């Protein structure tokens, strides 16, 4: 009994069935629900999923295929969901079988570059060993390359990364992230990177209405409710905050909500005259949001800069 005869290859493949059985549909539907806005990103993810599914189908029919280049670059302002989407991407690649384990290792320049000669290579290699079989997410990737400082060891890290990105495409997917204009400059001075990155995805800033939905979503998750007045105040807050410095999209909203919860807690604490029920503890009133310094022109330090 010869157990080595391979089973005959199938002649047709049902993409819809594959789409559902591999768990990709579930993951993309989750993504649609959990992440608000980001239309171009979701579109690109769907296209990538379709490509990978078809590649997998071709492989199962016995057609030759090379591992597609999956390295990506995410550009966009802070707080637009780059790390979250990278995590989803890792899950997607795992379900389609393009990475073996599908974990995400998130690093910045400091995790890759050493402080003295000979320190960079082992440091980078350690990070790469940890990331093998999954996705390596390099945030603020342009800091790797500092052309003005010749004692900087970022170039070494870049070289090691480039070699791994080319030779270990089966083992590791690298996602670079950062501001759009700085990433452009980075790619210009490192053409090796640009040629190895197949997918460039831009993360647009959220619209005011989307930020409002994100705020509502975050609050609902924590069992909080906004009154009608609070909702209007939130709209005003978002419009004002956007024009003030250091605006970080969803992260700014999260911080604002934390501060609103702080004010609500203080209000309840100081003005409570009897026992409070769950509704009282979960309601955020208008004054909790209006009390923010955003409505009076921003932080004191920022206003002083403007005045000066």
């Amino acid at each position, binding site marked *: 009994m010869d157990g080595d005869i391979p089973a005959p290859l199938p002649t047709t493949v049902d993409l819809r069935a594959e789409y559902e059985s591999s768990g990709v549909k579930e993951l993309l539907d989750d993504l649609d629900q959990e992440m608000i806005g980001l239309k171009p990103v979701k579109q690109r993810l769907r296209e990538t999923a379709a490509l990978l599914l078809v590649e997998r189908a071709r492989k199962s029919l016995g057609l030759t295929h090379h591992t597609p280049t999956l390295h990506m670059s995410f550009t966009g302002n802070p707080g637009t969901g780059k790390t979250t989407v990278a995590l989803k991407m890792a899950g997607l690649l795992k379900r389609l079988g393009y990475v073996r*384990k599908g974990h995400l290792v998130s690093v910045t320049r400091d995790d890759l570059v050493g402080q003295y000669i000979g320190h960079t290579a082992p440091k980078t*290699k350690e990070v*790469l*060993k*940890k990331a*093998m*079989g*999954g996705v390596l997410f390099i945030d603020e990737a342009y800091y790797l390359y500092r052309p003005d400082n010749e004692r900087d060891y970022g170039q070494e890290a870049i070289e090691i990364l480039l070699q791994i990105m080319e030779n270990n495409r089966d083992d590791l997917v690298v996602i670079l992230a950062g501001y759009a204009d700085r990433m452009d400059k980075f790619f210009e001075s490192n053409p090796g990177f640009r040629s190895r990155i197949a997918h460039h995805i831009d993360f647009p800033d959220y619209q005011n209405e989307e930020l409002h939905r994100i705020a509502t979503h975050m609050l609902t998750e924590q069992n909080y409710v906004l009154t009608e007045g609070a909702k209007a105040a939130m709209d005003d807050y978002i419009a004002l905050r956007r024009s003030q410095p250091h605006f970080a999209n969803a992260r700014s909203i999260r911080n604002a909500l934390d501060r609103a919860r702080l004010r609500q807690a203080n209000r309840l604490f100081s003005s409570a005259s009897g026992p409070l029920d769950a509704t009282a503890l979960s309601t955020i009133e208008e004054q909790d949001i209006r009390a923010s310094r955003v409505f009076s022109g921003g932080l004191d330090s920022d206003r002083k800069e403007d005045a000066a």
Partner: protein
Amino acid sequence: MRITQGCFSFLPDLTDEQISSQVDYCLSKTWAIGIEYTDDPHPRNTYWEMWGNPMFDLVDPKGVMMELEACRKQFGDHYIRFNAFDSTRGFETVTMSFIVNRPKVEPKIRMIRQETDGRSQRYSFETVR
């Protein structure tokens, strides 16, 4: 003589693929892998030289195989073994240890007799190079 220390030592040499799947098993149990090498296969030589540090936070065997390649490049003619360390409370021990590389010609182990008081014999072993 072909020393038979550790798991799988009575089997023919493991291929890289087999080593990789053993490492995958260890990592799936969250055991850390440490690489050690020596040129002295004496059975009492418990502590071999360490190659780098034990790898505690790896998820995929590729990282371990990369280290093995580097170790083989430098110490290709030594014995190299993988130790899998279980760090759960109550165990904290090496649970699995297997040889992944042997020198082309393995040293012999010779028995030495030593005469002590009366005409008692003490026996010990020695690696012959």
